[in-house]
């Protein structure tokens, strides 16, 4: 799963350091590699602002994967068949795996996982705000796969070509798994839509609640997206928020038709001239409220992550203490 937050500063209002105007040889080499669409690797010189932007983006992405385990985890114990339970556990576990390799990718930039977690737990670092909405019926699990992971794929495919090597390689693997997640979500909904009236109502209810949140996942409109231009220049961002959003809507409308659900937007219609769907107004006020920590589940999500971390302190301490004892014993034996 994914973060919309590529363009969301962790500390709103704070400008990122701009690139130095004195061009060193190192910087010239960096720029040349970017221009040639080459990859920057951990050992390469990179501008401090590039490094910071990547740490912010990759760690936000990793946090999103980890926090994103919670809304779907909410249904593991109640999954209505063993097959769906197994699929859901495997999927949520995949999201944990994504978090793990994204944290690892970010660590290659010189920031530890502990530092990144501290950012999340203190509320300083952002994560995708889609996870701050509750999952209220079983169909939410399918809709998260279909729409949320679908939106994530739209966002992430371009990142497979991101200029930072470890991130782009992580994204290739993540995208493969997300694509599987999307198909399983859609398939689960297809089965429900062929089922009882109650099952169909669950699917429609979940779509009604999540549709607009998914559109907002692509981030603020291009006209209001402060970091986009620099991100594009650095090859960290490849396609604009609005373009991705449009692409997602155009791809989703026919899928909704096949499924037999109504997308909750009376303004949604095909525009022959633009060769795209027109759509209604996204409630950006509600989006920013949620990004700023005041959505329906922000406090629960964050407090749950903090509690898991704090409750697990003794486990991590035990592992470290045991390892130290083993090392001491080995040293003694060697002496």
């Amino acid at each position, binding site marked *: 799963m994914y973060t919309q937050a590529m363009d969301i500063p962790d500390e709103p209002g704070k400008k990122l350091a701009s690139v130095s105007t004195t061009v060193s040889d190192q910087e010239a080499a960096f720029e040349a590699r970017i221009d040639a669409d080459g990859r920057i690797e951990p050992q390469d010189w990179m501008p401090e602002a590039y490094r910071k932007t990547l740490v912010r983006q990759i760690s936000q992405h990793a946090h999103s994967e*980890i926090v994103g*385990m*919670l809304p779907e*985890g909410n249904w*593991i*114990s*109640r*999954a*209505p*068949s*063993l*097959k*769906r*339970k*197994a699929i859901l*556990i*495997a999927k*949520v*576990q995949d999201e*944990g*795996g994504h*978090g*793990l390799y994204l*944290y690892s990718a970010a660590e290659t930039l010189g920031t530890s996982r502990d530092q990144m977690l501290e950012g999340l737990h203190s509320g300083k670092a952002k994560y995708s705000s889609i996870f701050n909405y509750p999952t209220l019926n*079983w169909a939410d699990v399918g809709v998260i796969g279909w729409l949320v992971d679908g939106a994530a794929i739209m966002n992430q495919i371009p990142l497979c070509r991101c200029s930072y090597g470890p991130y782009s390689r992580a994204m290739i693997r993540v995208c493969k798994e997300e694509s599987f997640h999307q198909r399983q979500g859609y398939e*689960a909904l297809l*089965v*429900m839509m*062929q*089922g*009882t009236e*109650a*099952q169909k109502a669950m699917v429609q209810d979940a779509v009604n609640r999540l549709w607009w949140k998914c559109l907002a996942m692509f981030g603020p409109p291009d006209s209001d997206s402060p970091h986009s231009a620099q991100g594009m220049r650095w090859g960290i961002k490849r396609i604009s928020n609005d373009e991705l959003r449009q692409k997602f809507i155009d791809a989703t409308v026919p899928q909704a038709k096949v499924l037999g659900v109504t997308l909750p937007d009376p303004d949604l219609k095909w525009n022959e001239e633009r060769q795209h769907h027109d759509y209604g107004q996204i409630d950006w006020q509600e989006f920013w409220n949620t990004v700023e920590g005041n959505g329906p589940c922000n406090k629960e999500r964050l407090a*749950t992550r903090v*509690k*898991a971390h704090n*409750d*697990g*302190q*003794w*486990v*991590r*301490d*035990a*592992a470290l*203490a*045991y390892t130290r*004892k083993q090392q001491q014993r080995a040293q003694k034996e060697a002496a």
Partner: protein
Amino acid sequence: MNAPVDYILHLADNAVVLGQRNAEWCGHGPILEEDIALANVSLDHIGQARLLYQLAATRMGGDATEDKLAYFRDETQFRNYTLLELPHNGPLVGYAVSDRDYATTIVRNFLYGALMVLVWDALEKSPDADLAAIAAKSLKEARYHLHHAADWVVRFGDGTEESHKRAQAAVDHLFPYTEEFWTSSAAEDAAVAAGAGADVRSLRAAWDAIVNETLAEATLVRPQVRGYVPEGKHGRHSEHLGYLLGEMQGLARAHPGATW
């Protein structure tokens, strides 16, 4: 000869109940790597349960399915060991609320894992070819589960003062429940008589050896056990299974006949 259906259900119920319990950690693990590992262990158990229920359903015939067996049987029909249905904390009544304790989780997985590497190993040789195939797959998984749990038992026992205390408390709390492994039940006796089941009582010495070795390395003490012997495999459970099944079965039972 094939193993009786009741015996297969006993194995399946063990797997589904422990799978359900371990999945409760998903998203709440003490460190990301363990979150993923526990989900994986849970997934293995759900997978085992599915294969076993499918086998039982095929042999029962009629309208039996894996989900009917998992979701539409009541507490008293479940044949799992009581050990596996206990929540992840010390001894508390059914409706008590408590934080999950990872030491309890790990010690349970260890005690059960040590048994199942032996049980699956025996069943791999069963003349019941379907059961033997499931056992062969499950044995590989159980070896990993035991390895994972035993490593942590040692880290906890020989880690910090707190981890030692928690691990010892979990061992003291859970050990009496393992007595149920060694009692007889009609289903197990019939399976053994048919030559298709594992004679669990004959595995006790091997189980003792695995458990004692790890506990010694972990500097943990094996408690003396006496008194009540749990009877989950006879369908007489603790107060905890009702809550577990209520949560697990609720949605499926609210929509009987629905396909998911």
